[in-house]
């Protein structure tokens, strides 16, 4: 039963224009970033203006394996375009089924409510993993080409595909509390706008602001920030070798394993709440 529901959810999700538009935006942004870096290194008029250590860093980003990690870091955090697209996708695919009444059809056909949500959740994570995998393939293809330009080809010997796979899973896990929160809010409010708005506001404004304020105030509060999803993600992604960029770059003192466990607990609790809300909801027309 769960398998059939999962197949149905996949059909609905992968046939949506939103999924493919989101992928195109993500790929476009990825290719634009790497294209600009390539242009900065390749065009003498630009490269002459850059310090040598910058050129070295750029060349490293245009070669395997660093290019994959750079792509993950740039496009897939809770404050990145990938994160925002993920919230958009989750919010829309979850909330839109209320006015379409397709949830009513499935539940009214004797399907346990928990299975309905579980299938949707699995499908959403499949879709997000798909976005990430396609972005990695595109970046891999592009930087294989740029590797030929600078080093005579990609350095296959330095590739650790197991580690790269684990890094992708960590990125997905780091995003999971936000995805779970979007999902939960979409179920509770039946509104994509409300769900996406609240989660985007939380990740883009509330969390960074709170971190800034507590770092200014100092004292016991700064210990609390380590348990914010953004800081937990930062701690977890240390295991991906590359430090998260920007204002949270230096923070996150927890070890990656503990951070992963806390993230899993947060996500589990939020999802449990979503299931409870859905179980008690009246699906009127």
């Amino acid at each position: 039963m769960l398998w059939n529901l999962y197949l149905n959810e996949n059909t609905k999700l992968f046939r949506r224009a939103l999924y493919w538009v989101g992928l195109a935006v993500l790929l476009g942004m990825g290719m634009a970033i790497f294209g600009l870096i390539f242009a900065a290194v390749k065009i003498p008029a630009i490269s002459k203006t850059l310090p040598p250590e910058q050129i070295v860093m750029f060349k490293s980003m245009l070669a395997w394996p660093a290019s994959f990690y750079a792509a993950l870091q740039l496009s897939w955090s809770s404050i990145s375009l990938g994160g925002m697209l993920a919230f958009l996708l989750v919010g829309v695919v979850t909330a839109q089924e209320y006015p379409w009444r397709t949830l009513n059809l499935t539940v009214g056909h004797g399907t346990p409510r928990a299975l309905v949500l579980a299938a949707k959740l699995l499908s959403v994570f499949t879709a997000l993993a798909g976005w990430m995998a396609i972005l990695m393939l595109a970046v891999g293809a592009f930087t294989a080409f740029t590797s030929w330009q600078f080093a005579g080809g990609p350095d296959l010997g330095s590739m650790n595909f197991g580690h790269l796979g684990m890094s992708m899973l960590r990125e997905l896990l780091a995003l999971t509390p936000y995805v779970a929160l979007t999902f939960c809010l979409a179920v509770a409010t039946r509104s994509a706008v409300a769900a996406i708005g609240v989660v985007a506001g939380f990740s883009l404004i509330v969390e960074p602001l709170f971190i800034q304020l507590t770092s200014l105030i100092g004292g016991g509060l700064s210990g609390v920030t380590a348990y914010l999803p953004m800081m937990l993600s930062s701690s977890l992604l240390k295991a991906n070798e590359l430090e998260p960029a920007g204002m949270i770059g230096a923070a996150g003192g927890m070890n990656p394993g503990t951070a992963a466990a806390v993230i899993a607990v947060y996500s589990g609790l939020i999802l449990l709440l979503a299931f409870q809300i859905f179980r008690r909801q009246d699906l009127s027309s």
Partner: protein
Amino acid sequence: MTNEIVIRIEKLRKTFGAVHAVEEVDLEVRRGSVFGFLGPNGAGKTTTIGMILSLIHPTAGTVKVLGETVTPSRNRVLRRVGAMAGAPALIPYLSARENLRLAARLNGGLPARRIDEVLEKVGLSAAADRASGQYSTGMKQRLGIAIAILHQPELLILDEPTNGMDPAGMLEIRNMLRALAEGGMTVFLSSHLLHEVEQVCDEVAVLNRGKVVRQGKVSELLGKEQAVLRVRVPSPAEAATLLLTLPGVTEVRPNGSYVSVTGVSGDAVVRCLTAHGIIPSEVTSGHPDLEQVFLQLTNS
């Protein structure tokens, strides 16, 4: 139609805050019947159907479908039920065929030829591969019905199935419902279209302000009511006022150039009107139709 009860509702109640949507509804639907569920807007029909389909948590009371108690957490028996509750539930960017494939998967997978059969049955074969979001309201209704009957359920629950259809389409659906009932399927039909219910249903329940005010066979419901005199007069309002003074009169209702009167004989009506200078040009006697019974029961 047999005496086996396929839907049994006892003391069903639903309140939304201070609003009593459904109050103490008791209902029985027999296997093989076409059961009409009538009521004015806001009477509680859709809420009742929502509780039958485990979509809405009852405040009190029980719903049994095909012998099993149904609640939002216990609804397995509904796999043997097909339903279109309210507007059809469709994925607008998928075609009719794809929407039916999703429904087929909910039933554990059905052969592709079954999908073709139902598309044919509801007259959507030619448009089967167009996105359902581009359909007219009537076509969407047809697709909703196709989804409901796809797995050949024992019980079919339809809420306003002919909404937005043209008269030919409505007739087609009525004939289809009768044919399904003759094939052994029980049909529970909620409709505002009283002549539709009168034509297609064996039994009806009339819901008003959350309560069932009458349930029974259509023939009994109409037969129990007193004969109605229809009197054509030049001044119906004046005639109605006069007729209300007649001893024994139970109801007087002006309707266009006619006045409907119950509870008195034709002789008494004609004598009363002519004595006051109103000459009736036509007097007919008959039993009320379902619309009149409905209006009377719901005080509309």
